[in-house]
């Protein structure tokens, strides 16, 4: 029969009603603001850390397998014989055996140990990584200046060193390190290259702990064997520990991703056979990658549920407020019915109010949700020196307020229905 009020008019009337109860509307909308902001913030931070974890694992290389030495748990007999030097870890024999596995394409042995690095009076507490020329390539490290280790260095047992970014910066503040001599242990090494800055990420040891390549000094493995031997004596900070360790890590490459798992199985068998204690650890980045992806998925679901709950709570808040509003405005409903409003006009009015509330809340929440992760990252960096990675998922930006509006409709339905079904006479009599 008649068209009823235009949508613009209904929205206008809704805004007036909401404006009349400013504080109530604000509090009701706050739930949606926080819910929407939570959805976007959690997704942003979740996606950021996921990306970081995946990058870290990819940096290890999906076709790589990493076997690392780990200090075995000390048993009681060891404790009584303190003078003994702890001998553990991978040996050169292990390395030879690994290299003989048919699927293994490249094997990269590494010895890494902490050391004091001296240039004139400057000291740097870093780490010596004795390795072969392929190390840089396999770990995706890039040179800033000079060159990396070469096969010739390896063959000639040269005392040459390549400095990590931080080492070079700390020891050679205003000088070019290339050609200068640094001292490690009792020997001097000629600096032949400096590595570019590398964001700390997972690496040696195979765990996903941050590995800071920038504090490393690379020397040829043959040189290391000749100069340092298998012993590691650490006298830093007044401690004295002595260990005998031939290799800290062997990184193996296979040609094909499909070869990764069989090779891992062979490695395991080999190591179990020749090591009577668990002084090694096999890390398969491919497994880590898949684990991380699974974890990331789980994490995303968890965050989604948390955010969904906060939106749900926001929706319940809206429903609650709308219900209270309907009760309080019973008389208004009666008046409107008396002067010709149909049930659907009343329902429409309250539904539109709920939607306006959630739509505004959703948009404010959207802005807040984009800003908050950046703020968290900034504060975490400034106060705790902790890097929070953020990655805005663009699809979440329209999605979150859209969900808010859906929540608005759902939470407004019941109160709107209650309002519409009121008996006009009863409603008019309501005080």
């Amino acid at each position, binding site marked *: 029969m008649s068209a009823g009020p235009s949508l613009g008019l209904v929205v206008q009337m809704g805004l*007036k009603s909401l404006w009349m109860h400013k504080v109530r509307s604000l509090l009701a909308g706050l739930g949606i603001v926080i819910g929407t902001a939570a959805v976007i913030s959690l997704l942003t931070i979740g996606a950021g850390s996921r990306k970081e974890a995946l990058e870290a694992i990819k940096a290890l290389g999906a076709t790589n397998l990493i076997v690392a030495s780990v200090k075995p748990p000390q048993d009681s007999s060891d404790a009584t014989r303190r003078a003994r030097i702890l001998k553990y870890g991978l040996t050169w024999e292990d390395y030879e055996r690994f290299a003989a596995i048919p699927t293994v394409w490249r094997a990269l042995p590494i010895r890494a140990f902490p050391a004091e690095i001296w240039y004139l009076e400057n000291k740097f507490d870093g780490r010596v990584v004795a390795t072969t020329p392929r190390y840089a390539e396999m770990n995706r490290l890039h040179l800033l200046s000079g060159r990396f280790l070469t096969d010739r260095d390896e063959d000639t047992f040269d005392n040459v060193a390549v400095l990590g970014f931080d080492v070079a910066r700390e020891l050679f503040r205003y000088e070019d390190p290339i050609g200068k001599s640094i001292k490690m242990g009792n020997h001097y090494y000629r600096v032949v290259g400096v590595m570019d800055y590398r964001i700390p990420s997972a690496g040696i040891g195979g765990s996903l702990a941050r590995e800071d390549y920038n504090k490393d000094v690379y020397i040829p493995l043959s040189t290391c064997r000749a100069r340092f031997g298998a012993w590691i004596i650490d006298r830093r900070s007044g401690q004295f520990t002595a260990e005998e360790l031939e290799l800290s890590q062997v990184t193996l490459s296979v040609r094909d991703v499909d070869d990764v798992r069989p090779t891992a199985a062979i490695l395991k068998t080999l190591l179990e056979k020749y090591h009577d204690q668990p002084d090694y650890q096999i890390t398969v980045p491919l497994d880590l990658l898949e684990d991380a992806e699974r974890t990331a998925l789980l994490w995303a679901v968890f965050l989604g549920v948390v955010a969904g709950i906060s939106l749900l709570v926001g929706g319940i808040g809206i429903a609650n407020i709308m219900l209270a509003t309907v009760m309080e405005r019973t008389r208004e409903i009666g008046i*409107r019915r008396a*002067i010709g409003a149909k049930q*659907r006009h009343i329902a429409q009015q309250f539904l539109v109010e709920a939607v306006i509330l959630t739509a505004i809340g959703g948009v404010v929440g959207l802005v807040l949700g984009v800003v908050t992760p950046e703020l968290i990252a900034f504060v975490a960096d400034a106060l705790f020196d902790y890097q929070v990675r953020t990655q805005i998922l663009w699809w979440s930006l329209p999605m979150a307020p859209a969900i808010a509006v859906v929540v608005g409709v759902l939470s407004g339905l019941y109160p709107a229905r209650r309002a519409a079904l009121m008996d006009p006479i009863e409603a008019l009599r309501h005080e």
Partner: protein
Amino acid sequence: MTVQPSQITERERQPDAGLQTSGEPVVRIVDIHKDYYLGSVVVPALRGVSLEVYPGEFIAIMGASGSGKSTLLNLLGCLDRPTRGQYYLGGRNVANLSDDELSEIRSRYIGFIFQSYNLIPQLTAFENIEVPLYYQGNVSPESKQRVVELARLVGLERWLNHKPTQLSGGQQQRVAIARALINDPYIILADEPTGNLDTSTSYEIMKLLVQLNDMGKTIIMVTHEPDIAAYAKRAVHMRDGKIIKDEPITQRRVTSDGPVPAGAQLTASAGQDAGE
């Protein structure tokens, strides 16, 4: 001074109105019963009420509380349906219409005036007068003009942008009267329109109602105050859900004002009687 019924009733309605009122009573109820149910107990509120109201009448329905006068007014206002009986509004039986259809009838043919004014608090006086048009989807520059004209008629043109809380009781009731007029209804139903007002304001409001009646509006008013009823032309007395007395008022109170102000047009939007 009294306008002939035909002058109002022959106005052209909207094409879909479907109601004709020429010469006929605008309201005709026949043997209306209304029962309320309190649990399993049936409480009869109206027990066979019949009434005819002709265009241009001004009827006061009187009775003690519990006499059924409010129930009758609710039925006349299409806010409720009778348990039994017929109700013809402008010739159409509206006793058994659906909720939506009753809303439509209220929207187009009935104007309400309440004891407690019943304005919508968050809207201005202007918007309150305009609200019935919202539900017809009928807001236009012409209708806005009509709001202003009605505000002038009830003496409120300077208060149009005020909210109800900023208006006195008398002013709020004037807004309510203008709102009741906006759709140019068949009947105006007034439920104790002066119940919340002091004597002098009551007089002002009754003067306005008498003036509207003089302009041809049909008014049905519920009151329990004989003083107020005395402004009407006909008194219907009720007791226990029945009409016990229905008589013209012989000693009608007159308002001091003379004729209707020149140029006041109740039906500016309908626009037919201006030429007659």
